[in-house]
């Protein structure tokens, strides 16, 4: 069965298994890293096929219907997402990177000099890249893996802290705590940031945790 199960990744990616076969393969997936990796690549190829079917546009009312239904369902969700929604407070400027830089420049006078220096110092290094982080922050990374983030978030709720993470497939490492608050916060990322990593931020209990307890609400794309 095990040898046969590997061969089901492609039909699974194409949704070409019946329900029972799909369930069996999902059980296999849970214990087979090789198939999980293979499936990721096969799914990407399969999703590419979607672009081969381009046809007429959907009727405009479809979007309204979807949004109306989503709105209705939000009324039923627990209080946590409702509270988290506040974090999506917008930035003044458009565009993730442009906005982040604008915030950075705008509020650096209001941040503590040591914090300001961390971001400015990393960004000033040869080859440093600037990457957007959602619509309210940015990360700068040097070729040798030094990194800092700047993020505009309200103060963490009482008993909570923001925690940054360096996320690689199979390994998530804590990268520092911060409180948020007026203006933007600058944080020097602890540990080296290698290519392919993602930097994300979650809210955790005060003092921080070893592994995130939720999905990052802000994250970069994979560092290139």
């Amino acid at each position: 069965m095990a040898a046969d199960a590997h061969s089901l990744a492609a039909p699974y990616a194409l949704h070409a298994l019946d329900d029972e076969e799909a369930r069996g393969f999902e059980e296999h997936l849970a214990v087979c890293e090789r198939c999980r990796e293979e499936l990721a690549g096969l799914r990407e190829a399969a999703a590419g096929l979607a672009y081969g079917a381009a046809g007429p546009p959907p009727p405009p009312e479809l979007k309204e219907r979807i949004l109306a239904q989503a709105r209705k369902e939000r009324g039923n969700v627990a209080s946590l997402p409702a509270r988290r929604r506040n974090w999506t407070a917008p930035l003044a400027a458009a565009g993730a990177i442009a906005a982040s830089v604008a915030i950075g420049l705008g509020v650096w006078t209001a941040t503590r000099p040591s914090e300001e220096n961390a971001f400015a110092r990393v960004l000033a290094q040869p080859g440093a890249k600037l990457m957007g982080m959602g619509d309210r922050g940015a990360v700068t990374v040097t070729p040798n893996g030094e990194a800092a983030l700047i993020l505009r978030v309200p103060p963490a709720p009482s008993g909570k802290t923001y925690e940054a993470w360096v996320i690689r497939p199979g390994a998530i490492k804590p990268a520092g705590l911060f409180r948020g608050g007026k203006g933007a916060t600058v944080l020097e990322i602890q540990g080296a940031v290698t290519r392919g990593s993602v930097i994300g931020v979650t809210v955790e209990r005060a003092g921080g945790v070893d592994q995130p307890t939720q999905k990052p609400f802000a994250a970069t794309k994979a560092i290139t």
Partner: protein
Amino acid sequence: MTALMTTRPPATGNLAQVSDEALVSLVASSDEQALAELYDRFGRVAYGLALRILRDEALAQDAVQEAFLGVWRSADQYLPERAKASTWILTLVHRRAVDLVRREDRRRGEPLDDAPEPVALSTVEGEATLGFQRRVVQEALKGLPSDQREALELAYYGGLTQSELAERLGQPLGTIKSRMFMGLARLRDLLAQAGLEESLR
């Protein structure tokens, strides 16, 4: 905080340059404008795919609606390190459309060749990117050995299961699985070479 929420500018100015993945994170925080932006980016491709599979406008709309509500409900389970957001969303759309086509049993006796040809490129003028992407995928499909292309098309666009494919083509199941695997692997290489990836960014 209420003031911040009510003064939020329209999504177009604010979210247009936010990555697909970041949008999904915002959707996970119940941000409706982020969902609207994702729909603006992928709704048309999603509908084209659903229509190709279901060949019925009402059913295609149902599939797209269910898929985007799936995005809304399960955005917090999306793992950016596992898949691009576009892959995740289009996988949901495909799943819904295939579920529906099997439930409606709309596949019987309809050879795929009889499927209505998607609209000609001239009718998607002004949407050069979409036309380009479609051409890239169709060219890549043509670049596959015909038995692999047939397996992918019948499974992905036709909604057939591997067993139905084996029966229909009179081939052993192992051969069908192998054609699917080889076809997808080769397709991935061809799409990468053709720059579909870049055009999607």
